[in-house]
Protein backbone atom coordinates (compact mmCIF):
# COMPACT_ATOMS: atom_id res chain seq x y z
CA UNK A 1 0.00 0.00 0.00
CA UNK A 2 2.77 2.40 1.00
CA UNK A 3 4.60 1.38 -2.14
CA UNK A 4 1.59 2.26 -4.30
CA UNK A 5 1.20 5.68 -2.67
CA UNK A 6 4.91 6.42 -3.19
CA UNK A 7 4.69 5.20 -6.77
CA UNK A 8 1.76 7.46 -7.60
CA UNK A 9 3.25 10.53 -5.87
CA UNK A 10 6.78 10.19 -7.15
CA UNK A 11 5.67 8.95 -10.54
CA UNK A 12 3.54 12.03 -11.11
CA UNK A 13 6.46 14.17 -9.94
CA UNK A 14 8.70 12.45 -12.49
CA UNK A 15 6.19 12.95 -15.31
CA UNK A 16 5.52 16.54 -14.28
CA UNK A 17 9.26 17.24 -14.29
CA UNK A 18 9.64 15.64 -17.71
CA UNK A 19 6.77 17.71 -19.11
CA UNK A 20 8.27 20.92 -17.73
CA UNK A 21 11.59 20.07 -19.43
CA UNK A 22 9.72 20.14 -22.74
CA UNK A 23 7.28 22.98 -22.15
CA UNK A 24 9.11 25.41 -19.83
CA UNK A 25 9.74 28.74 -21.53
CA UNK A 26 12.88 29.38 -19.52
CA UNK A 27 15.81 26.93 -19.76
CA UNK A 28 16.50 27.24 -16.01
CA UNK A 29 13.00 25.98 -15.20
CA UNK A 30 13.52 23.19 -17.73
CA UNK A 31 16.68 22.19 -15.87
CA UNK A 32 14.78 22.29 -12.58
CA UNK A 33 12.16 20.00 -14.09
CA UNK A 34 14.90 17.60 -15.12
CA UNK A 35 16.23 17.74 -11.55
CA UNK A 36 12.78 16.73 -10.29
CA UNK A 37 12.63 13.80 -12.71
CA UNK A 38 16.13 12.56 -11.84
CA UNK A 39 15.39 12.84 -8.13
CA UNK A 40 12.12 10.93 -8.51
CA UNK A 41 13.99 8.16 -10.31
CA UNK A 42 16.34 8.03 -7.31
CA UNK A 43 13.33 7.54 -5.02
CA UNK A 44 12.14 4.67 -7.23
CA UNK A 45 15.50 2.97 -6.84
CA UNK A 46 15.24 3.32 -3.05
CA UNK A 47 11.75 1.76 -3.10
CA UNK A 48 13.24 -1.18 -5.01
CA UNK A 49 16.04 -1.46 -2.41
CA UNK A 50 18.71 -0.25 -4.85
CA UNK A 51 20.23 2.18 -2.37
CA UNK A 52 23.60 2.35 -4.10
CA UNK A 53 22.07 3.07 -7.50
CA UNK A 54 19.86 5.74 -5.92
CA UNK A 55 22.81 7.47 -4.28
CA UNK A 56 24.87 7.31 -7.47
CA UNK A 57 21.91 8.62 -9.47
CA UNK A 58 21.63 11.67 -7.22
CA UNK A 59 25.38 12.33 -7.02
CA UNK A 60 26.20 11.89 -10.70
CA UNK A 61 23.09 13.08 -12.53
CA UNK A 62 21.30 15.42 -10.13
CA UNK A 63 24.51 16.62 -8.51
CA UNK A 64 27.20 16.88 -11.17
CA UNK A 65 25.69 16.65 -14.66
CA UNK A 66 22.78 18.98 -14.01
CA UNK A 67 25.02 21.50 -12.24
CA UNK A 68 27.08 21.60 -15.43
CA UNK A 69 23.89 22.10 -17.48
CA UNK A 70 22.95 25.06 -15.28
CA UNK A 71 26.48 26.43 -15.54
CA UNK A 72 26.33 26.30 -19.34
CA UNK A 73 22.85 27.86 -19.40
CA UNK A 74 24.09 30.75 -17.29
CA UNK A 75 27.33 31.16 -19.23
CA UNK A 76 25.59 31.51 -22.61
CA UNK A 77 23.06 33.90 -21.10
CA UNK A 78 19.68 33.00 -19.72
CA UNK A 79 17.84 36.02 -21.02
CA UNK A 80 18.76 35.69 -24.69
CA UNK A 81 15.84 35.10 -27.04
CA UNK A 82 15.99 31.57 -28.35
CA UNK A 83 16.09 30.73 -32.03
CA UNK A 84 13.03 28.50 -32.38
CA UNK A 85 13.15 27.92 -36.14
CA UNK A 86 13.42 24.26 -37.00
CA UNK A 87 16.23 23.23 -39.32
CA UNK A 88 14.86 19.69 -39.58
CA UNK A 89 11.65 19.56 -41.61
CA UNK A 90 8.79 17.31 -40.50
CA UNK A 91 10.47 17.10 -37.08
CA UNK A 92 7.24 17.74 -35.21
CA UNK A 93 5.21 15.28 -37.27
CA UNK A 94 7.86 12.61 -36.78
CA UNK A 95 7.94 13.13 -33.00
CA UNK A 96 4.14 13.02 -32.75
CA UNK A 97 4.16 9.77 -34.75
CA UNK A 98 6.84 8.18 -32.55
CA UNK A 99 5.03 9.30 -29.38
CA UNK A 100 1.80 7.76 -30.66
CA UNK A 101 3.58 4.46 -31.34
CA UNK A 102 5.04 4.48 -27.82
CA UNK A 103 1.69 5.24 -26.19
CA UNK A 104 0.03 2.43 -28.14
CA UNK A 105 2.80 -0.06 -27.25
CA UNK A 106 2.79 0.79 -23.55
CA UNK A 107 -1.00 0.75 -23.51
CA UNK A 108 -1.06 -2.66 -25.16
CA UNK A 109 1.44 -3.97 -22.62
CA UNK A 110 -0.47 -2.57 -19.63
CA UNK A 111 -3.96 -3.59 -20.73
CA UNK A 112 -2.81 -6.86 -22.25
CA UNK A 113 -1.73 -7.91 -18.75
CA UNK A 114 1.96 -8.15 -19.65
CA UNK A 115 2.87 -5.45 -17.16
CA UNK A 116 1.81 -6.79 -13.79
CA UNK A 117 2.03 -4.98 -10.46
CA UNK A 118 4.34 -7.15 -8.36
CA UNK A 119 4.61 -5.89 -4.78
CA UNK A 120 8.07 -6.22 -3.35
CA UNK A 121 8.10 -9.11 -0.91
CA UNK A 122 11.25 -9.99 0.96
CA UNK A 123 11.30 -12.91 3.33
CA UNK A 124 12.87 -12.07 6.66
CA UNK A 125 14.77 -8.85 7.28
CA UNK A 126 15.17 -6.48 4.35
CA UNK A 127 18.62 -7.04 2.79
CA UNK A 128 20.88 -4.21 3.79
CA UNK A 129 23.76 -5.15 1.54
CA UNK A 130 23.21 -3.92 -2.00
CA UNK A 131 26.61 -2.22 -1.92
CA UNK A 132 28.38 -5.44 -0.96
CA UNK A 133 26.46 -7.46 -3.55
CA UNK A 134 27.15 -5.06 -6.41
CA UNK A 135 30.82 -4.78 -5.42
CA UNK A 136 31.12 -8.55 -5.19
CA UNK A 137 29.74 -9.09 -8.69
CA UNK A 138 31.48 -6.10 -10.23
CA UNK A 139 34.94 -7.07 -9.02
CA UNK A 140 34.69 -10.80 -9.77
CA UNK A 141 32.46 -11.80 -12.70
CA UNK A 142 32.43 -8.41 -14.41
CA UNK A 143 35.96 -7.23 -13.62
CA UNK A 144 37.14 -7.02 -17.24
CA UNK A 145 34.12 -5.07 -18.57
CA UNK A 146 34.40 -2.78 -15.53
CA UNK A 147 38.08 -2.02 -16.14
CA UNK A 148 37.55 -1.62 -19.88
CA UNK A 149 34.75 0.87 -19.22
CA UNK A 150 37.05 2.84 -16.93
CA UNK A 151 39.74 2.86 -19.63
CA UNK A 152 37.17 3.95 -22.23
CA UNK A 153 36.08 6.88 -20.07
CA UNK A 154 39.68 7.98 -19.54
CA UNK A 155 40.34 7.80 -23.29
CA UNK A 156 37.16 9.75 -23.93
CA UNK A 157 38.16 12.52 -21.51
CA UNK A 158 41.71 12.71 -22.90
CA UNK A 159 40.34 12.72 -26.47
CA UNK A 160 37.95 15.57 -25.69
CA UNK A 161 40.79 17.67 -24.28
CA UNK A 162 43.02 16.83 -27.26
CA UNK A 163 40.32 17.79 -29.76
CA UNK A 164 39.57 21.02 -27.93
CA UNK A 165 43.16 22.19 -27.51
CA UNK A 166 45.19 20.70 -30.34
CA UNK A 167 45.32 22.47 -33.67
CA UNK A 168 47.87 21.14 -36.20
CA UNK A 169 50.49 23.69 -37.13
CA UNK A 170 49.55 26.11 -34.38
CA UNK A 171 52.33 27.21 -32.03
CA UNK A 172 52.25 25.74 -28.52
CA UNK A 173 50.25 27.86 -26.15
CA UNK A 174 51.99 28.86 -22.97
CA UNK A 175 50.23 29.99 -19.83
Amino acid at each position, binding site marked *: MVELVIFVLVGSAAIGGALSVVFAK*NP*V*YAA*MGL*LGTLFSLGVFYVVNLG*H*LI*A*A*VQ*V*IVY*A*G*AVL*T*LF*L*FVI*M*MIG*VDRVEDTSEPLRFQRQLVIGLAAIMVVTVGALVFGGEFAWVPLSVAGPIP*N*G*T*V*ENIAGIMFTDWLLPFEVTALLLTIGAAGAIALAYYAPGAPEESE
Partner: protein
Amino acid sequence: MDLIDFGLIVLRVVATFALLLVVTPLNIWAERKLLADMQNRVGPDRAGPWGILQSFADAFKLFFKEQVMPTKAEKAAFMLAPVFAVVPAFLLFMVVPWGKPITFTVDGVERVLPLQGTDLNVGVLFVLAMSSMAVYAVVLAGWSSGSKYPLLGGVRATAQAISYEAALGLSIVAVVLYSSTAGDSGGGTLSLAGIVERQAGSLETVLPQFGAITQFIPRWNLIPQFVAFVIFVLAAIAETNRAPFDLVEAEQELVGGFHTEYSGSKFLLFFLAEYVNIFSMSALAATLFLGGWNGPTFDSILPGFISAALPTMWLLLKTYVIVFLFIWVRATLPRMRYDQLMTLGWKRLIPGALAWLIVSALVIGIRRFGLPFV
Protein backbone atom coordinates in the same frame (compact mmCIF):
# COMPACT_ATOMS: atom_id res chain seq x y z
CA MET B 1 7.21 -2.79 13.90
CA ASP B 2 5.12 -1.77 16.87
CA LEU B 3 4.24 1.59 18.36
CA ILE B 4 7.40 1.83 20.49
CA ASP B 5 9.67 1.22 17.48
CA PHE B 6 7.80 3.88 15.55
CA GLY B 7 8.11 6.27 18.48
CA LEU B 8 11.85 5.63 18.65
CA ILE B 9 12.26 6.49 14.96
CA VAL B 10 10.35 9.75 15.43
CA LEU B 11 12.41 10.48 18.54
CA ARG B 12 15.70 9.94 16.68
CA VAL B 13 14.78 12.26 13.84
CA VAL B 14 13.33 14.96 16.08
CA ALA B 15 16.29 14.82 18.46
CA THR B 16 18.79 15.16 15.58
CA PHE B 17 16.83 18.07 14.17
CA ALA B 18 16.60 19.73 17.58
CA LEU B 19 20.33 19.29 18.17
CA LEU B 20 21.05 21.23 14.98
CA LEU B 21 18.57 23.97 15.87
CA VAL B 22 20.11 24.39 19.32
CA VAL B 23 23.77 24.42 18.32
CA THR B 24 23.44 26.67 15.27
CA PRO B 25 22.66 29.98 17.06
CA LEU B 26 25.40 29.14 19.55
CA ASN B 27 27.83 28.52 16.68
CA ILE B 28 27.04 31.89 15.14
CA TRP B 29 27.62 33.54 18.52
CA ALA B 30 30.85 31.57 19.02
CA GLU B 31 32.13 32.61 15.60
CA ARG B 32 31.40 36.29 16.21
CA LYS B 33 32.96 36.19 19.66
CA LEU B 34 36.08 34.30 18.51
CA LEU B 35 36.55 36.56 15.48
CA ALA B 36 36.24 39.55 17.80
CA ASP B 37 38.87 38.10 20.14
CA MET B 38 41.25 37.42 17.27
CA GLN B 39 40.76 40.93 15.88
CA ASN B 40 41.09 42.71 19.25
CA ARG B 41 37.42 43.69 19.46
CA VAL B 42 34.80 43.05 22.12
CA GLY B 43 32.17 41.40 19.91
CA PRO B 44 28.54 40.90 20.94
CA ASP B 45 28.17 41.45 24.71
CA ARG B 46 24.73 43.01 25.31
CA ALA B 47 22.13 40.23 24.99
CA GLY B 48 22.47 37.80 27.89
CA PRO B 49 25.73 36.87 29.64
CA TRP B 50 28.71 37.39 27.23
CA GLY B 51 26.15 38.22 24.55
CA ILE B 52 25.23 34.55 24.20
CA LEU B 53 21.62 35.40 23.26
CA GLN B 54 22.68 37.72 20.43
CA SER B 55 21.97 35.17 17.67
CA PHE B 56 18.48 34.51 19.04
CA ALA B 57 17.80 38.26 19.07
CA ASP B 58 19.09 38.54 15.48
CA ALA B 59 16.95 35.60 14.38
CA PHE B 60 13.82 37.19 15.84
CA LYS B 61 14.70 40.53 14.28
CA LEU B 62 15.16 38.97 10.82
CA PHE B 63 12.00 36.95 11.21
CA PHE B 64 9.84 40.04 11.76
CA LYS B 65 11.49 42.19 9.11
CA GLU B 66 9.83 43.18 5.87
CA GLN B 67 10.64 40.94 2.92
CA VAL B 68 11.57 42.74 -0.26
CA MET B 69 10.99 41.07 -3.61
CA PRO B 70 13.02 42.65 -6.45
CA THR B 71 10.84 43.77 -9.39
CA LYS B 72 12.88 41.81 -11.93
CA ALA B 73 13.08 38.64 -9.81
CA GLU B 74 11.80 35.29 -11.04
CA LYS B 75 9.16 34.85 -8.34
CA ALA B 76 8.91 31.04 -8.08
CA ALA B 77 12.64 30.36 -8.11
CA PHE B 78 13.29 33.29 -5.77
CA MET B 79 10.92 31.79 -3.19
CA LEU B 80 12.20 28.25 -3.69
CA ALA B 81 15.95 28.92 -3.35
CA PRO B 82 16.07 29.32 0.48
CA VAL B 83 14.18 26.02 0.84
CA PHE B 84 16.74 24.33 -1.42
CA ALA B 85 19.43 25.67 0.92
CA VAL B 86 17.92 24.48 4.19
CA VAL B 87 16.65 21.00 3.30
CA PRO B 88 19.98 19.42 2.19
CA ALA B 89 21.77 21.12 5.10
CA PHE B 90 19.53 19.38 7.63
CA LEU B 91 19.39 16.08 5.72
CA LEU B 92 23.18 15.88 5.60
CA PHE B 93 23.43 15.69 9.39
CA MET B 94 20.74 12.99 9.58
CA VAL B 95 23.23 10.20 8.82
CA VAL B 96 25.94 11.35 11.26
CA PRO B 97 25.94 9.26 14.46
CA TRP B 98 26.14 11.68 17.39
CA GLY B 99 26.23 9.28 20.31
CA LYS B 100 26.66 5.70 21.40
CA PRO B 101 23.53 3.58 20.77
CA ILE B 102 21.48 3.29 23.98
CA THR B 103 20.20 -0.17 24.89
CA PHE B 104 17.22 -0.50 27.20
CA THR B 105 14.52 -3.02 28.03
CA VAL B 106 10.77 -2.41 27.84
CA ASP B 107 8.37 -5.23 28.87
CA GLY B 108 11.16 -7.77 28.61
CA VAL B 109 12.04 -6.80 25.02
CA GLU B 110 15.50 -5.37 24.52
CA ARG B 111 15.53 -2.32 22.28
CA VAL B 112 18.35 -0.25 20.82
CA LEU B 113 18.10 3.49 20.25
CA PRO B 114 20.94 4.59 17.95
CA LEU B 115 21.66 8.28 18.46
CA GLN B 116 21.58 9.08 14.76
CA GLY B 117 18.88 10.31 12.40
CA THR B 118 19.14 7.11 10.39
CA ASP B 119 21.93 4.67 9.60
CA LEU B 120 22.06 4.31 5.82
CA ASN B 121 24.16 1.57 4.25
CA VAL B 122 25.23 4.19 1.71
CA GLY B 123 25.67 6.93 4.33
CA VAL B 124 28.91 8.30 2.87
CA LEU B 125 27.37 8.58 -0.60
CA PHE B 126 24.27 10.21 0.89
CA VAL B 127 26.48 12.89 2.42
CA LEU B 128 28.10 13.55 -0.96
CA ALA B 129 24.70 13.65 -2.66
CA MET B 130 23.32 16.17 -0.19
CA SER B 131 26.39 18.39 -0.31
CA SER B 132 26.09 18.47 -4.11
CA MET B 133 22.39 19.38 -3.80
CA ALA B 134 23.27 22.44 -1.74
CA VAL B 135 24.71 24.23 -4.77
CA TYR B 136 21.28 24.54 -6.39
CA ALA B 137 20.19 26.98 -3.70
CA VAL B 138 23.07 29.32 -4.52
CA VAL B 139 22.63 28.99 -8.28
CA LEU B 140 18.86 29.50 -8.16
CA ALA B 141 19.14 32.42 -5.75
CA GLY B 142 21.80 34.05 -7.88
CA TRP B 143 19.89 33.68 -11.10
CA SER B 144 16.37 34.46 -9.85
CA SER B 145 17.33 37.71 -8.13
CA GLY B 146 17.42 39.44 -11.51
CA SER B 147 20.52 41.37 -10.58
CA LYS B 148 24.17 41.34 -11.69
CA TYR B 149 26.05 40.57 -8.48
CA PRO B 150 23.94 37.63 -7.36
CA LEU B 151 24.25 36.11 -10.85
CA LEU B 152 28.05 36.39 -10.71
CA GLY B 153 27.99 34.76 -7.27
CA GLY B 154 25.79 31.96 -8.59
CA VAL B 155 28.08 31.20 -11.54
CA ARG B 156 31.12 31.20 -9.28
CA ALA B 157 29.36 28.84 -6.87
CA THR B 158 28.64 26.29 -9.60
CA ALA B 159 32.26 26.09 -10.76
CA GLN B 160 33.57 25.99 -7.20
CA ALA B 161 31.19 23.28 -6.06
CA ILE B 162 32.03 20.98 -8.99
CA SER B 163 35.77 21.47 -8.51
CA TYR B 164 35.89 20.76 -4.80
CA GLU B 165 33.29 18.00 -4.68
CA ALA B 166 35.71 15.71 -6.52
CA ALA B 167 38.46 16.30 -3.97
CA LEU B 168 35.99 15.86 -1.09
CA GLY B 169 34.76 12.56 -2.51
CA LEU B 170 38.23 11.21 -3.28
CA SER B 171 39.49 11.94 0.25
CA ILE B 172 36.52 10.00 1.66
CA VAL B 173 37.25 7.07 -0.68
CA ALA B 174 40.67 6.65 0.95
CA VAL B 175 39.02 6.55 4.39
CA VAL B 176 36.46 3.97 3.28
CA LEU B 177 39.27 1.89 1.81
CA TYR B 178 41.30 2.11 5.01
CA SER B 179 38.39 1.24 7.30
CA SER B 180 37.96 -2.02 5.39
CA THR B 181 41.19 -3.16 7.09
CA ALA B 182 39.68 -2.90 10.58
CA GLY B 183 39.24 -6.64 10.54
CA ASP B 184 37.02 -7.56 13.48
CA SER B 185 33.76 -6.35 11.94
CA GLY B 186 34.62 -7.78 8.54
CA GLY B 187 35.05 -5.88 5.29
CA GLY B 188 34.57 -2.23 4.48
CA THR B 189 31.46 -0.17 4.88
CA LEU B 190 29.85 3.01 3.58
CA SER B 191 27.73 3.41 6.72
CA LEU B 192 28.94 6.17 9.01
CA ALA B 193 28.03 4.17 12.12
CA GLY B 194 30.19 1.35 10.75
CA ILE B 195 33.11 3.71 10.13
CA VAL B 196 32.87 4.95 13.74
CA GLU B 197 32.79 1.37 15.07
CA ARG B 198 35.96 0.57 13.12
CA GLN B 199 37.82 3.35 14.95
CA ALA B 200 37.16 2.02 18.45
CA GLY B 201 40.03 0.89 20.65
CA SER B 202 43.69 1.81 20.47
CA LEU B 203 46.25 1.75 17.70
CA GLU B 204 47.72 -1.37 19.32
CA THR B 205 45.28 -3.53 17.36
CA VAL B 206 46.85 -2.27 14.11
CA LEU B 207 50.50 -2.12 15.17
CA PRO B 208 50.94 -4.69 17.97
CA GLN B 209 54.74 -4.65 17.64
CA PHE B 210 54.96 -1.15 19.19
CA GLY B 211 52.45 -1.93 21.95
CA ALA B 212 54.24 0.16 24.57
CA ILE B 213 53.46 3.35 22.66
CA THR B 214 50.51 2.46 20.47
CA GLN B 215 48.26 1.28 23.31
CA PHE B 216 47.86 4.90 24.39
CA ILE B 217 47.03 6.21 20.91
CA PRO B 218 43.40 5.91 19.78
CA ARG B 219 42.78 4.08 16.53
CA TRP B 220 41.48 7.11 14.69
CA ASN B 221 41.66 7.42 10.93
CA LEU B 222 43.41 10.74 11.49
CA ILE B 223 46.81 9.10 11.97
CA PRO B 224 47.00 6.71 8.99
CA GLN B 225 44.89 8.99 6.78
CA PHE B 226 46.35 12.38 7.71
CA VAL B 227 46.73 13.50 4.08
CA ALA B 228 43.10 12.63 3.38
CA PHE B 229 42.12 14.62 6.48
CA VAL B 230 43.91 17.74 5.24
CA ILE B 231 42.33 17.42 1.79
CA PHE B 232 38.91 16.79 3.33
CA VAL B 233 39.06 19.87 5.56
CA LEU B 234 40.28 22.11 2.70
CA ALA B 235 37.55 20.84 0.40
CA ALA B 236 34.94 21.15 3.16
CA ILE B 237 35.87 24.81 3.70
CA ALA B 238 35.48 25.41 -0.04
CA GLU B 239 32.28 23.39 -0.21
CA THR B 240 30.65 25.46 2.56
CA ASN B 241 31.81 28.66 0.81
CA ARG B 242 33.82 29.87 3.79
CA ALA B 243 36.76 32.25 3.85
CA PRO B 244 39.33 32.06 2.23
CA PHE B 245 37.17 30.39 -0.46
CA ASP B 246 34.12 32.66 -0.04
CA LEU B 247 34.25 34.14 -3.54
CA VAL B 248 30.58 33.29 -3.85
CA GLU B 249 29.63 36.06 -1.44
CA ALA B 250 32.76 38.21 -1.55
CA GLU B 251 31.48 41.40 0.09
CA GLN B 252 34.02 43.76 -1.43
CA GLU B 253 33.37 42.82 -5.04
CA LEU B 254 29.92 41.24 -5.17
CA VAL B 255 28.16 43.18 -2.37
CA GLY B 256 26.88 39.95 -0.80
CA GLY B 257 26.93 37.55 -3.73
CA PHE B 258 23.97 35.27 -4.19
CA HIS B 259 22.00 36.59 -1.20
CA THR B 260 22.33 40.31 -1.98
CA GLU B 261 18.64 40.69 -2.79
CA TYR B 262 17.33 38.53 0.05
CA SER B 263 15.91 40.01 3.22
CA GLY B 264 13.92 39.03 6.29
CA SER B 265 13.17 35.38 6.95
CA LYS B 266 14.39 34.22 3.51
CA PHE B 267 17.83 35.61 4.32
CA LEU B 268 17.53 33.97 7.72
CA LEU B 269 17.09 30.58 6.02
CA PHE B 270 20.28 31.06 3.97
CA PHE B 271 22.15 32.08 7.09
CA LEU B 272 20.80 29.09 9.01
CA ALA B 273 21.76 26.71 6.18
CA GLU B 274 25.31 28.06 6.03
CA TYR B 275 25.94 27.52 9.73
CA VAL B 276 24.19 24.14 9.79
CA ASN B 277 26.49 23.12 6.93
CA ILE B 278 29.58 24.23 8.84
CA PHE B 279 28.51 22.20 11.87
CA SER B 280 27.57 19.15 9.77
CA MET B 281 30.84 19.20 7.83
CA SER B 282 32.80 19.51 11.09
CA ALA B 283 30.81 16.66 12.65
CA LEU B 284 31.47 14.63 9.51
CA ALA B 285 35.21 15.31 9.72
CA ALA B 286 35.12 14.27 13.39
CA THR B 287 33.21 11.10 12.46
CA LEU B 288 35.42 10.11 9.55
CA PHE B 289 38.81 11.02 10.99
CA LEU B 290 38.62 11.67 14.75
CA GLY B 291 36.85 8.51 15.84
CA GLY B 292 33.31 9.91 16.04
CA TRP B 293 31.77 9.39 19.46
CA ASN B 294 34.52 6.99 20.55
CA GLY B 295 36.23 7.97 23.77
CA PRO B 296 36.61 6.90 27.39
CA THR B 297 33.23 6.58 29.13
CA PHE B 298 34.42 5.47 32.63
CA ASP B 299 31.53 2.99 32.88
CA SER B 300 32.59 1.57 36.24
CA ILE B 301 33.34 4.89 37.98
CA LEU B 302 30.62 7.28 36.84
CA PRO B 303 26.84 6.83 37.18
CA GLY B 304 25.14 5.27 34.16
CA PHE B 305 23.46 8.34 32.71
CA ILE B 306 26.72 10.30 32.64
CA SER B 307 28.69 7.58 30.87
CA ALA B 308 25.78 7.25 28.40
CA ALA B 309 25.99 10.97 27.66
CA LEU B 310 29.80 11.10 27.45
CA PRO B 311 30.10 9.80 23.83
CA THR B 312 27.88 12.68 22.65
CA MET B 313 30.13 15.07 24.57
CA TRP B 314 33.22 13.57 22.92
CA LEU B 315 31.71 14.01 19.47
CA LEU B 316 30.72 17.61 20.24
CA LEU B 317 34.20 18.33 21.58
CA LYS B 318 35.85 16.93 18.44
CA THR B 319 33.36 18.75 16.22
CA TYR B 320 34.10 22.04 17.92
CA VAL B 321 37.83 21.54 17.42
CA ILE B 322 37.10 21.52 13.67
CA VAL B 323 34.60 24.40 13.94
CA PHE B 324 37.31 26.39 15.72
CA LEU B 325 39.66 25.56 12.85
CA PHE B 326 37.07 26.91 10.38
CA ILE B 327 36.79 30.17 12.36
CA TRP B 328 40.56 30.45 12.86
CA VAL B 329 41.15 30.06 9.12
CA ARG B 330 38.55 32.74 8.40
CA ALA B 331 40.17 35.17 10.84
CA THR B 332 43.68 34.50 9.51
CA LEU B 333 43.71 34.09 5.74
CA PRO B 334 42.83 36.66 3.08
CA ARG B 335 40.45 35.65 0.29
CA MET B 336 42.01 33.81 -2.67
CA ARG B 337 41.81 35.01 -6.25
CA TYR B 338 39.52 33.01 -8.51
CA ASP B 339 42.35 31.50 -10.58
CA GLN B 340 44.16 30.52 -7.38
CA LEU B 341 41.00 28.78 -6.19
CA MET B 342 40.74 26.79 -9.42
CA THR B 343 44.47 25.98 -9.42
CA LEU B 344 44.32 24.70 -5.87
CA GLY B 345 41.25 22.59 -6.62
CA TRP B 346 42.22 21.02 -9.94
CA LYS B 347 46.02 21.02 -9.91
CA ARG B 348 46.77 20.37 -6.24
CA LEU B 349 43.88 18.78 -4.32
CA ILE B 350 42.46 16.38 -6.94
CA PRO B 351 45.86 14.97 -8.09
CA GLY B 352 46.96 14.92 -4.44
CA ALA B 353 43.86 13.01 -3.40
CA LEU B 354 44.29 10.56 -6.30
CA ALA B 355 47.95 9.97 -5.47
CA TRP B 356 47.08 9.46 -1.80
CA LEU B 357 44.35 7.00 -2.78
CA ILE B 358 46.86 4.96 -4.81
CA VAL B 359 49.40 5.02 -1.96
CA SER B 360 46.75 3.91 0.56
CA ALA B 361 45.55 1.14 -1.74
CA LEU B 362 49.13 -0.11 -2.27
CA VAL B 363 49.95 -0.10 1.45
CA ILE B 364 46.70 -1.84 2.36
CA GLY B 365 47.21 -4.41 -0.39
CA ILE B 366 50.80 -5.16 0.60
CA ARG B 367 49.90 -5.43 4.29
CA ARG B 368 47.15 -7.91 3.50
CA PHE B 369 48.56 -9.98 0.63
CA GLY B 370 52.31 -9.36 0.90
CA LEU B 371 54.62 -8.00 -1.79
CA PRO B 372 53.88 -9.11 -5.35
CA PHE B 373 56.36 -11.33 -7.26
CA VAL B 374 58.14 -12.45 -4.06
